[in-house]
């Protein structure tokens, strides 16, 4: 069997186009994935028009906002492109140079300051968007809504903080600075204590004792209720808190998952195409009858092709991972689990490729069939739960169990990231699929020579 394996590797070496593809393909995938992982998501470009006059400021509690602070805060999550006028911003949006425009009106700070008084005016910002493309419109809407929601949340936190400070002053007393003047506030707690002392001195027979007692009870009740108001105010700033609990799965890091997807796709295409083509070549070269009339059994030939797939998958996937390591950190200390996942995954894909090669019987037909089958397998195996109906998702789970993509992805993810679970079950799944597709390939070989 080893002579046949050497022969296949020799033929591979003599097929420059195939060899170049086998080397270039993983390198190209590595570069693409590497760039995607290392650059991170781009900030959306938004035109920014700031009409807030210089020198105007808004302060609330410990926070403050002026013209430059407003720009810094709003432009933290987007790339702001300064525009001098609303007309300029509109042109930029229309031309597609920016996704949208954010306009801070002249009265923004004045209106924000009015929130502190009795005659509050609603502060607002203007947004210009280009909705010629529904996908783009949705993206712009989501980004700007998120931006304004964050700004509102910050503002509401500041308002709540200031209000809580005033409440504390009413309850416990203290100093208040207003319009440059300082006031001492007695507070309900101290007022209650003074009134209680006075009540003791007056005695129960005093005619003021009854109304004084009413005032003391009111002050006490007011203090207790205002104390309760403080946590209520805090909860207004965060009306709903998210408490996340993972009930299923121990996912790998995003980088490890992306690398595993790239590696699985490479593993799939290279191994399936190579093994399917190599087995079909035995028939096209008329060597199959000569080989199987006693030189090697049909099962032995299949085992040799699976071994060829494993060798190729190991080489190509490690070339790809080495390329990726220029862009992202790969845990090379986990060489053995990674290698194990590639080998067992390669075996499953090789058996799958052998079944295709045995069924198609011609190199071109087997290559076309392998490509046409592999692509939807990869696509359907990557559909996440919750994005399709329950019935369809259950169907997809059965589909995933029948093909090696999902199990290979799980094995590689767990191989790359020690935090991810499911390494053992994924390898077992792949081993079962290797056996199943090996049996299918063996059955298909019965009519291979005819």
């Amino acid at each position: 069997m080893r002579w046949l394996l050497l022969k296949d590797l020799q033929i591979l070496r003599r097929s420059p186009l195939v060899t170049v593809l086998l080397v270039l393909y993983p390198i190209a995938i590595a570069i693409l994935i590497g760039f995607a992982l290392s650059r991170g998501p781009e900030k959306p470009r938004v035109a920014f028009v700031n009409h807030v006059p210089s020198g105007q400021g808004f302060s609330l509690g410990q926070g403050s906002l002026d013209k430059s602070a407003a720009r810094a805060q709003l432009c933290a999550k987007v790339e702001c492109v300064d525009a001098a006028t609303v007309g300029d911003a509109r042109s930029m949006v229309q031309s597609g140079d920016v996704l949208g425009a954010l306009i801070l009106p002249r009265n923004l700070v004045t209106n924000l300051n009015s929130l502190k008084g009795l005659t509050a005016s609603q502060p607002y910002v203007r947004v210009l968007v280009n909705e010629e493309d529904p996908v783009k419109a949705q993206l712009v809407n989501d980004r700007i809504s998120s931006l304004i929601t964050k700004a509102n949340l910050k503002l509401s936190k500041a308002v709540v903080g200031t209000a809580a400070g005033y409440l504390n002053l009413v309850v416990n007393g203290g100093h208040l600075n207003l319009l440059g003047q300082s006031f001492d506030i007695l507070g309900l707690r101290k007022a209650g204590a003074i009134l209680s002392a006075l009540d003791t001195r007056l005695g129960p027979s005093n005619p003021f004792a009854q109304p004084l007692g009413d005032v003391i009870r009111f002050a006490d009740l007011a203090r207790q209720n205002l104390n309760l108001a403080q946590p209520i105010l805090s909860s207004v700033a965060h009306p709903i808190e998210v408490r996340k609990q993972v009930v299923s799965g121990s996912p790998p890091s995003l980088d490890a998952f992306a690398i595993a997807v790239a590696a699985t796709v490479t593993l799939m295409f290279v191994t399936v195409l190579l093994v399917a083509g190599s087995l079909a070549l035995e028939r096209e070269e008329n060597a199959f009858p000569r080989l199987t009339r006693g030189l090697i059994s049909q099962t032995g030939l299949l085992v040799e092709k699976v071994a060829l797939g494993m060798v190729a998958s190991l080489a190509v996937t490690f070339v790809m991972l080495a390329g990726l390591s220029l862009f992202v950190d790969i845990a090379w200390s986990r060489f053995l689990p990674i290698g194990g996942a590639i080998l067992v995954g390669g075996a499953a894909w090789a058996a799958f490729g052998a079944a295709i090669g045995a069924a198609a019987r011609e190199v071109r037909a087997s290559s076309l069939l392998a490509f046409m089958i592999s692509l939807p397998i990869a696509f359907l195996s990557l559909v996440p739960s919750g994005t399709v109906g329950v019935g369809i998702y259950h169907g997809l789970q059965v589909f995933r169990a029948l093909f090696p993509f999902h199990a290979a992805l799980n094995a590689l993810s767990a191989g790359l990231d020690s935090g991810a679970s499911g390494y053992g079950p994924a390898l077992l799944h792949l081993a079962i699929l290797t056996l199943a597709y090996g049996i299918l390939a063996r059955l298909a070989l019965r009519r291979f020579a005819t």
Partner: protein
Amino acid sequence: MAETAIEVRGVGKRFGEREALRGVTFSAAPGELLAIIGPNGAGKTTLLSILAGIRRADEGEVSRPPGEIGFVPQQAALYRRLTVAENLRLFARLEKVPDVDATVERMLDQTGLRDRRDDQVSTLSGGNQQRVNIAIGLLAAPAALLLDEPSTGLDPRQRERLWEFVLGLAGGGTTVIFSTHNIAEAERYGGRLLVLADGEALFDGSPADLHAAAGSDGRDFEAAFVAFLRAKGH
């Protein structure tokens, strides 16, 4: 009693309802050239594939196991991206011959392809590819060699060189059993003929015997063959 290199007794084969071979019996002596001829669908390739061990007979027996018989399929069963020597070496290793290098050198001499040893098979002519194809069938030094329509697709000059090579093998004591559609070739090179029709062996004898059986004047062998088949109802 004459020595036999291979003996076939009552071999039959069915494909579903169709009877491809029916009680075929013959034998061949060492160094004998036996031509199997017959119309299309007569069962020639089926018979050779049973002798080669590619198919199993439903009934009957063959005196030698497939491992002792060399087989040369109709189309060259070679790896075109490997060189002549690499092909010979690969199959010699798979045949587990005792001295691989010596066997390869012997075959290169025997085929006259020593100067093309490092050329990829894809660059050889059809005739030379067929010589390598036959050489692979001879690697294990079999007592009998089966050739399935060996001259198909070759030009006259290539055919002549091929038959020189085959005659040399027979001269060396190898029994050669070949099937062919070329009746003139069967008459010229086949010391004995086995005529198959509808899976049945109708005739086993020399070309002269076939002329006699057909009642021909001995000049046109193809006409005698057709007349013989017609007389037998085919």
